[in-house]
């Protein structure tokens, strides 16, 4: 197989020629976006609209002894101040965001809309304000008088696990809210026979999503008594939860998702929704609430930090025989998606390798730190820091090339994962590994003595589609218009990754309607069939397949009619470029519009609603997870070259390459964009990004103190796309939204080790830390 670097697509096998799929298309919304014509959430205003603000805790653990809102309420311009007493239902109703499948037990540590008699983290919402102006709302924040009594808090996950630790939720018997494990074979026995054993501890940090668009939305009550929210969200299905909080029928809440200015999991849980809904309901007036950047930093969740204990054993010829691991994640004070993240972490804890003997225990622990929840690559990038470092350590101990060691252990099609799930699709790890190493090329020369150059690579895996036990579904409706154009309706939100674009391409490919004649309407909980969340790298798999099913149904009806009109067989008919034509004789053709008119003339409206059902499995009820957990996985590798300045410990990433098997690249330009963006978030995690809390008090609340990569920090990126055609998405596609975050951090750590002989086991790289370790090393 010819592997070409620099954004070349390597096709595993040439399949049929598509008309639209696989083309490097411009995005349907891109010109409007770059021209400033998109009305993002905060760009929308209404007559008589009020401005909302959230009053939040500045204590990580305290009793609220007294709260006096009278001065705030009486302040000129203030319309209302609400506390928990004004919230009809102050406890969350669901533990299954965006799903309807019954999961049995709901969380024992329910989320609370507004704090009642105590606060459990710095930033916890306590009261809501709505005022005529932003200034009045801002001033009212300072007029709320609150008296706290400090309570003991717990800020370290291992401390929190102890019997003697203060309970974050005082009624509960433990701070450990979730425990999952993997158990295969007999690790103790296997370690006895291992030729080499490596054991290390790893640690990751809080990461902030830092999407450019702050959380924002406007809520209002319409003339029919329906509460409407126009909001930046990855999950329009939150309308159910909002209805629960307000005590309204679900049919009386409508969520319209806006085109988002990025999300990355930051807009997966509810953000402003309950607050604007409550304020609008309470005042009867439209209310807008947009978080400040500071509020985004301390008022919304972060990526789960993990502490990870790994023990790996292998034979002298490099076969993994056993992995034993304990991973502990910090959930913060309330459980949002920590439970599911832990499940993802557990399933992926041993990496994309076949391991015959496995014992993994993962815990999610409540603390009085900021709460953690969804972030692109959802619990799967943290263990990669551990399992890939362990592979490098084994290679070192065995004096084996790290690429060779991995080649001996990669999962293959038909292999069983740690849960016993059989991988059904292609596993192109060897090819992606070879491609990224080749893409880096030889190490750069440096004439400066204090600069050391190193290269490293890592592999990773990530599932696309939600957990099978959620019984995930996605619906889409497609209608043909009599002039040969088409309308697509799908509830799937668009966070900027091109969800709408994919639906348009799939519809065009199958119905033959040109791209510019297809209009996609999305993300309206009452007017578009529910498409499910834009999370879990599920957009293409789920809403893409729903659109495919609907378009295929239309295609069938259109081909039947076309065969009659063209006087040929159905198998000879194809649809493309606005025409139905005979494949044998291209000149024998009719416009789609004529075809559609003929069908509609027979009383068939040519509109189809289809629902796609993901593979299902029973709920995970035991600690030890077994069987099929996910639909399928995406596999790939990344490689980096770094320069380490030994005088300062500063790491500069100078080359960066990634290769993924995406199954089928529906739009290769979009796929590259997803990979480049994901890699860069991984790079930021590796070398610069860290949200810091000191005993529950946040320390860096601005983009000046929380740095994300700029154009100067990111080198030129090479992307190699493989297309095995074996994915479960439309046309054999796999998901690629989140997988690219996974392998970047361990690749950087590996390159640093190659450069200066120091392996860092804690992210991100701190230059002073690295400098000290380099000094220690040279002193030896």
């Amino acid at each position, binding site marked *: 197989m010819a592997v070409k670097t620099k954004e070349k697509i390597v096709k595993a096998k040439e399949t049929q020629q598509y008309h639209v799929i696989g083309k490097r298309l411009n995005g349907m919304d891109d010109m409007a976006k770059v021209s400033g014509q998109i009305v993002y959430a905060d760009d929308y205003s209404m007559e008589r609209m009020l401005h909302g603000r959230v009053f939040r805790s500045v204590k990580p653990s305290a009793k609220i002894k007294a709260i006096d809102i009278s001065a705030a309420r009486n302040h000129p311009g203030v319309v209302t101040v609400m506390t928990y007493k004004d919230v009809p239902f102050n406890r969350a109703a669901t533990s299954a965001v965006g799903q309807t499948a019954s999961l049995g037990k709901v969380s024992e540590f329910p989320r609370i809309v507004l704090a009642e008699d105590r606060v459990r983290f710095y930033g916890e919402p306590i009261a809501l304000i709505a005022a005529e102006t932003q200034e009045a709302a801002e001033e009212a924040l300072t007029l709320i008088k609150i008296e706290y009594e400090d309570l003991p808090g717990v800020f370290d996950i291992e401390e929190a696990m102890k019997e003697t630790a203060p309970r974050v939720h005082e009624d509960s018997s433990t701070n450990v809210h979730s425990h999952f494990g993997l158990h295969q074979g007999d690790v103790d026995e296997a370690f006895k026979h291992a030729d080499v054993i490596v054991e290390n501890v790893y640690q990751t940090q809080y990461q902030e999503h830092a999407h450019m668009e702050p959380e924002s939305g406007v809520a209002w009550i319409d003339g029919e008594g329906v509460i409407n929210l126009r909001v930046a969200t990855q999950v329009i299905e939150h309308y159910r939860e909002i209805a629960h909080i307000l005590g309204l029928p679900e049919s009386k809440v409508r969520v319209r998702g806006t085109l988002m200015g*990025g999300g990355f999991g930051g807009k997966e849980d509810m953000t402003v929704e309950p607050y604007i809904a409550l304020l609008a309901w309470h005042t009867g007036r439209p209310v807008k609430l947009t978080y400040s950047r500071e509020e985004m930093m301390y008022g919304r969740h972060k990526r789960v930090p993990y502490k990870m204990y790994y023990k790996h054993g292998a034979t002298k010829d490099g076969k993994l025989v056993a992995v034993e691991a304990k991973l502990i994640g910090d959930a913060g004070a309330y459980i949002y998606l920590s439970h599911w993240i832990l499940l993802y972490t557990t399933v992926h804890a041993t990496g994309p390798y076949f391991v015959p003997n496995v014992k993994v225990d993962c815990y999610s622990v409540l603390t009085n730190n900021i709460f953690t929840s969804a972030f692109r690559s959802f619990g799967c990038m943290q263990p990669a820091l551990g399992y890939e470092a362990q592979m490098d350590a084994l290679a070192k101990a065995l004096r084996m090339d790290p690429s060779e060691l991995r080649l001996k252990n990669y999962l293959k099609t038909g292999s069983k994962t740690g849960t016993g799930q059989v991988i059904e699709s292609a596993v192109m790890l060897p090819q992606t590994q070879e491609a990224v190493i080749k893409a880096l090329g030889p190490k750069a020369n440096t004439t400066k003595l204090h600069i050391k150059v190193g290269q490293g690579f890592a592999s990773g895996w990530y599932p696309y589609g939600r957990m099978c036990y959620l019984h995930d579904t996605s619906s889409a409706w497609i209608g043909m218009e009599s002039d040969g154009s088409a309308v697509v309706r799908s509830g799937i939100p668009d966070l900027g990754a091109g969800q709408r674009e994919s639906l348009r391409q799939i519809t065009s490919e199958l119905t033959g309607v040109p791209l510019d004649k297809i209009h996609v309407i999305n993300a309206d909980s009452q007017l578009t069939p529910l498409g499910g969340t834009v999370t879990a790298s599920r957009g293409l798999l789920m809403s893409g397949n729903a659109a495919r099913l609907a378009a295929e149904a239309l295609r069938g009806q259109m081909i039947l009619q076309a065969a009659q009109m063209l006087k040929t067989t159905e198998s000879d008919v194809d649809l493309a470029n606005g025409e139905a034509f005979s494949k044998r004789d291209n000149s024998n053709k009719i416009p789609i519009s004529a075809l559609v008119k003929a069908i509609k003339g027979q009383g068939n409206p040519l509109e189809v609603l289809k629902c796609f059902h993901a593979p299902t499995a029973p709920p995970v009820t035991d600690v030890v997870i077994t069987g099929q957990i996910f639909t399928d996985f995406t596999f790939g590798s990344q490689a980096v070259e770094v320069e380490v300045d030994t005088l300062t410990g500063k790491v500069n990433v100078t080359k960066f390459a990634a290769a993924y098997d995406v199954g089928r690249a529906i739009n290769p330009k979009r796929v590259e964009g997803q990979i480049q963006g994901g890699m860069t978030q991984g790079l930021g995690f590796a070398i610069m990004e860290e949200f810091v809390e000191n005993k529950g008090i946040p320390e860096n609340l601005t983009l000046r103190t929380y740095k994300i990569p700029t154009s100067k920090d990111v080198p030129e990126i090479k992307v190699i796309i493989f297309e095995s055609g074996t994915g479960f998405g439309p046309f054999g596609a796999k998901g690629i939204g989140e997988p690219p975050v996974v392998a970047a951090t361990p690749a950087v750590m590996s390159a640093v080790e190659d450069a200066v002989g120091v392996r860092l086991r804690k992210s991100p790289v701190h230059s002073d830390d690295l400098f000290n370790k380099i000094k220690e090393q040279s002193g030896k």
Partner: protein
Amino acid sequence: MEIKLNINDSMVTGKAEAGTTLLRFLRENGHTEVKKGCGEGECGACTVLLDGIAVTSCLVPAMQAQGKEITTIKKQGDPVIDALKESFVNHGAVQCGFCSPAMVLTAKWFLSENPHPTRAEIREYMAGNLCRCTGYAKIVDAIEYASKTIESFAKIGAR
């Protein structure tokens, strides 16, 4: 006080308090194409051109713009803006799009100072405009391509 300024070739008069930023003034006067990402001059999403120079409008008091010329992405008939916009779209440099208008304006400004930048120079100039979606690769591609074609684009545009 009353402020009068030229926004995209049309005179706009509006009221602003002492502390009102240019960003807020623009957004409250219908120019929501100028985005607020951080309000502290770090993300660059609020970039506009003030007499041709790129500024983060969240740090500029509206009063300082009195009588000046403001360019936002909605300026019509500007061949450099048009060339950059088209190049951004063609190169896939737009994902969520929130940072894109400001990126284009910053690029317009620095191309006026350095019409033929290297890729490294583009990265240097653009470092004040954050993007969380693209990893900057396609943004650099787009600006590089635009810098090479802008002259012919300008000729076409001028006809």
